[in-house]
């Protein structure tokens, strides 16, 4: 419903019932605010957003109201410019500034501070208060967030965000009066894996990015570009910033369909691996004395020589490499000799997931749709560790129930405190079944902890309870039956239920079970969606490209069919156990590896080529939603480093593959790969290199970028021309279009008077809604409208713990399980030490205490680890941390044996 609103005498159409602040901001007015946030809505705490409201045309006195707390109604008359309203707002900010230290020059927030912007906006320029300012002691909050309490204006955003949206319980507000203190009870790392958003949520310099502090640059001195997070399969949108050839930080890039206003800490802070000493910077050739740098031309011609002389070549791509890199490798070696580089089990899991989404009738939701769902079933996947922002979205899903309850009382969804008060302990039905506890358990209506097979059986039982045509689950316990009925009842009631699962449990049956629940709801005509988490940032893209698994590659090698093996951005020693990886690599005469960081695989390479990271190249990743998204180079690659596909192209051309010569730019390559089945949408992910805004390129450097002539003066006093960007419509320069580019190309948020991230308001059609000129990214997978909702065939037998035999399952860790971010110091600091998890009962039976050394044997792989006793882990299960440095690679789940090393055998 549209309402006519009169603002300072002019009429505007706004959404009826929306709060006036949001309406005014959406109309483009500059109205200051603090406690309001588009994702956290209104509490009316700071009094900064005051406007004047008039009864009617004749009313000349009017009254001061808080715009964030007042719904827009038809015919309403307000004034932003009214002198009393202006004076009120100036007074509020003057009061807020009484205790503020005015230390902008040494404050990391300076230059992108909402408090600065709002102070200037209200015109408060002169301090009248002559009082001692209160001061606070700061806390050490761990490696990610810096704390400087004196700058606080007590807007309460931080604790509202942390408690209500992120579900954290270790950050709070203490004291009263003008002594309120926002922090932890004692010093120590913030416990929430979403803590980094405090940096953006806090409108002042209390919470700032600690990693940025380690290599500080002002916002206006950072070169930035639109990018996509590479640290899990969700593909959150980011804005990394660079100076002097080094990444300095990552900020959120708003995509209302994906991450919205927030990122997880793995995504925000994982970036420092790109500055790591492990970076490969030159082509290396392995000789008797170890690897030595060689010129690029020599590397290219050497490898090309191997290919040209009739050498039989094999390519192993990677689910963490871009579509472009994988496609180029496939083109170089030939489709039949291209393998994705994941173990067979992972290939089967990912293809199962993709099949469910492609062939079923069920749509996969974007994260916004998960946030808006009103019931959820999470089957087998610990999303809090494998896809953090999906867990974050499920927390918002839990809130939907409160919003609904409040709506029955006529309370608007933006009236945040009222919603919480009326909603009390109400939460949407959320059911979580995982092998081990998760950090989402607090929002669950009910929890199950069980072996993957049992979780799958529970899922199938839910499907059966929903739809009598679904297959019967044999030997189901009464308890499971009644659980299934409860879940089915809640899902059936819901208007927008979502089923969440993924590859994390390592069980295709779990995926099929999730598919079955969704299919059953679908057959009942419910509007159900199915979200499946995948292992890596481009797992979906890799699966869409096709190609066999490492098992296939190994069998080629065994047959003696391979002279030269080319591995793209893939450390095989993370995917296979060391013996299997050794065997594979030993079977080839020549090994060439392209990667960013030195690892066990590059160490074996006869030739290792240094390739560009996500921040130095352009490319496309396909998220678990099937959304193809383009990331752009933030800064040019230095020295010999270049995009994988460019290395591969050069090698191909030198080896006589003339068709690769046509790929002059990323666009050319994308053009070719878009002809692949299922990938035609890829070229729509972002505007191509020819795109111009008002005839100009989009500058990566802000118009206030400083020191351009000086920054290279230690090398040459002549200012070099800016590096050319052949691939994209963005420029490595300050010159270019200063207005708003299409959503997929927005390199930063800035608008006159709005230096902080809140400048985003000016980029959105409606504040809080989509960025203009969208969409950013394109969905490649949509279900066929007429596809039947089918059930999978096999239902696994019940899990029975056997004496002396355990089921080892993978336990994922947001910090430590992902390869690249683990090379970031802060992430490494928060990662767990290697361990083997046992249930308290099993530990007792084996006479094992916390930290005692135990020996785990899975097949022929034996390793010693300290025991960790995990309450809630079902009996008969052992938990082995996934992907953690210092833990041997084993394909899980798998049967295993455990032995106490100090005591006798259990």
């Amino acid at each position, binding site marked *: 419903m549209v309402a006519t609103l009169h603002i300072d005498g002019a009429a505007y159409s706004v959404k009826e019932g929306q709060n006036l602040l949001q309406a005014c901001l959406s109309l483009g007015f500059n109205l200051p605010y603090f406690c309001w946030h588009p994702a956290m809505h209104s509490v009316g705490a700071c009094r900064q957003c005051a406007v004047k409201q008039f009864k009617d045309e004749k009313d000349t006195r009017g009254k001061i109201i808080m715009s964030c707390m007042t719904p827009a109604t038809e015919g309403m008359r307000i004034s932003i410019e009214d002198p009393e309203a202006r004076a009120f707002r100036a007074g509020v900010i003057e009061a807020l500034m009484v205790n503020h230290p005015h230390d902008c020059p040494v404050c990391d927030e300076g230059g992108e501070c909402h408090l600065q912007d709002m102070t200037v906006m209200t015109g408060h320029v002169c301090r009248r208060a002559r009082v001692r300012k209160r001061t606070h002691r700061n806390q050490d909050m761990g490696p990610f967030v810096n704390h400087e309490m004196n700058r606080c204006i007590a807007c309460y955003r931080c604790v509202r965000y942390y408690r209500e949206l992120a579900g954290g*319980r270790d*950050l*709070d*507000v*203490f*004291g*009263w009066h003008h002594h309120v203190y926002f922090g932890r*009870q*004692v010093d120590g790392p913030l416990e929430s894996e979403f803590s980094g958003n405090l940096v953006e949520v806090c409108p002042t310099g209390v919470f700032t990015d600690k990693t940025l502090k380690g290599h500080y640059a002002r916002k206006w001195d950072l070169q930035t570009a639109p990018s996509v997070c590479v640290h899990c399969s969700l593909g959150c949108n980011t804005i990394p910033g660079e100076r002097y050839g080094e990444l300095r930080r990552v900020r959120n890039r708003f995509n209302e369909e994906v991450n919205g206003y927030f990122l997880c800490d793995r995504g925000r802070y994982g970036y420092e691996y790109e500055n790591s000493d492990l970076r490969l910077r030159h082509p290396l050739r392995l000789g008797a004395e170890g690897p030595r740098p060689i010129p690029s031309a020599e590397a290219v011609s050497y490898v090309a020589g191997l290919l040209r002389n009739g050498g039989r070549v094999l390519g192993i791509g990677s689910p963490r490499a871009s579509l472009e890199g994988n496609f180029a490798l496939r083109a170089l070696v030939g489709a039949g000799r291209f393998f994705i580089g994941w173990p067979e089990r992972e290939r089967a899991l990912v293809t199962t997931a993709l099949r469910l989404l492609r062939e079923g009738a069920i749509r996969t939701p974007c994260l916004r749709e998960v946030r808006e769902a009103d019931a959820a079933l999470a089957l087998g996947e610990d999303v809090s560790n494998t896809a953090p922002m999906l867990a974050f979205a499920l927390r918002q899903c839990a809130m939907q129930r409160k919003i609904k309850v409040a709506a029955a009382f006529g309370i608007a969804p933006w009236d945040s405190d009222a919603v919480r008060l009326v909603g009390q302990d109400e939460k949407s039905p959320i059911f979580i079944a995982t092998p081990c506890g998760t950090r989402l358990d607090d929002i669950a209506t009910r929890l199950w902890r069980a072996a993957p097979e049992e979780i799958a059986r529970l899922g199938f039982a839910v499907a059966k309870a929903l739809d009598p045509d679904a297959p019967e689950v044999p030997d189901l316990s009464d308890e499971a039956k009644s659980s299934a009925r409860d879940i089915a009842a809640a899902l059936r009631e819901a208007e927008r239920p979502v089923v969440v699962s993924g590859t994390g449990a390592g069980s295709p049956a779990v995926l099929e079970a999730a598919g079955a629940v969704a299919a059953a709801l679908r057959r009942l005509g419910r509007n159900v969606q199915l979200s499946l988490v995948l292992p890596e940032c481009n797992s979906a893209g890799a699966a869409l490209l096709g190609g066999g698994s490492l098992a296939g590659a190994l069998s080629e090698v065994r047959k003696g069919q391979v002279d030269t093996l080319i591995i793209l951005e893939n450390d095989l020693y993370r995917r296979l156990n060391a013996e299997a990886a050794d065997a594979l690599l030993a079977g080839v005469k020549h090994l060439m590896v392209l990667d960013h960081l030195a690892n066990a695989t590059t160490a074996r390479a006869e030739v290792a080529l240094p390739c560009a990271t996500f921040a130095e190249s352009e490319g496309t990743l396909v998220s678990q939603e099937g959304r193809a998204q383009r990331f752009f180079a933030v800064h040019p690659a230095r020295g010999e480093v270049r995009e994988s596909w460019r290395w591969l192209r050069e090698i191909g051309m030198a080896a006589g593959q003339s068709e690769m010569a046509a790929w002059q730019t990323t666009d050319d390559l994308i053009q070719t790969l878009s002809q692949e089945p299922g990938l035609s949408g890829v070229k729509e992910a972002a505007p191509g290199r020819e795109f111009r805004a008002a005839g100009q390129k989009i500058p990566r450097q802000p118009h206030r970028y400083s020191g351009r002539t000086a920054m290279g003066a230690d090398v040459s006093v002549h200012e070099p021309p800016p590096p050319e960007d052949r691939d994209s419509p963005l420029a490595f320069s300050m010159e270019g279009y200063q207005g708003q580019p299409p959503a997929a190309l927005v390199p930063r948020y800035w608008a006159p008077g709005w230096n902080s991230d809140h400048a985003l308001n000016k980029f959105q059609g409606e504040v809080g809604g989509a960025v203009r000129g969208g969409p950013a990214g394109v969905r490649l997978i949509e279900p066929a409208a007429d596809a039947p909702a089918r059930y999978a065939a096999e239902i696994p037998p019940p899990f029975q713990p056997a004496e002396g035999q355990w089921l080892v399952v993978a336990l994922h860790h947001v910090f430590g399980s992902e390869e690249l971010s683990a090379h970031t110091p802060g992430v490494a600091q928060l990662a767990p030490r290697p361990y083997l998890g046992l249930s308290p009962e099993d530990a007792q039976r084996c006479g094992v205490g916390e930290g005692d050394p135990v020996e785990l044997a899975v097949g022929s792989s034996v390793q010693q680890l300290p025991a960790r006793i995990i309450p809630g882990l079902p009996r008969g299960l052992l938990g082995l941390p996934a992907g953690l440095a210092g833990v041997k690679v084993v394909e899980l789940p798998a049967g295993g044996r455990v032995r106490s090393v100090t005591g006798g055998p259990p």
Partner: protein
Amino acid sequence: MLTESEKEEIAEEVKRAGHARAACVDALRIVQRRRGWVCDEALREVAALVDMTPAELDSVATFYSLIYRKPVGRHVILLCDSVVCWVMGHETALEHLTRRLGITLGETTADGRFTILPTACLGACDRAPAMMVDEEIHGDLTPEKIDRILEQYR
């Protein structure tokens, strides 16, 4: 370490409230009644009993001026600083107390006898300026009267 009887009394309170968190202030008072204040260790233990994190409970504890998170003297003087008392001579009373005891708001005398804290309204506006010592309210304060009152508390 909380004593068994403290734990029992808190458990009673939790049962009565029907909702563990709802008993948090009472639980803190139970501890304070016995110890005079709430130390960090006790706070952490109480938090576990009322299903809160230490941060959540401390947020409540530090909000209420009558929950003491630092040791206080044997007698606590709560001096009202609300508008009526302020108009009626709160400042004179504070000056006198400060001179007499050698401490100001938020401090404790060296012999551990008195602590002075501000409070907003004792509900004794008709007898302003007023203060409360331990559980007792004293109104119409004058320097002489204050001296007499202090003598009652050893």
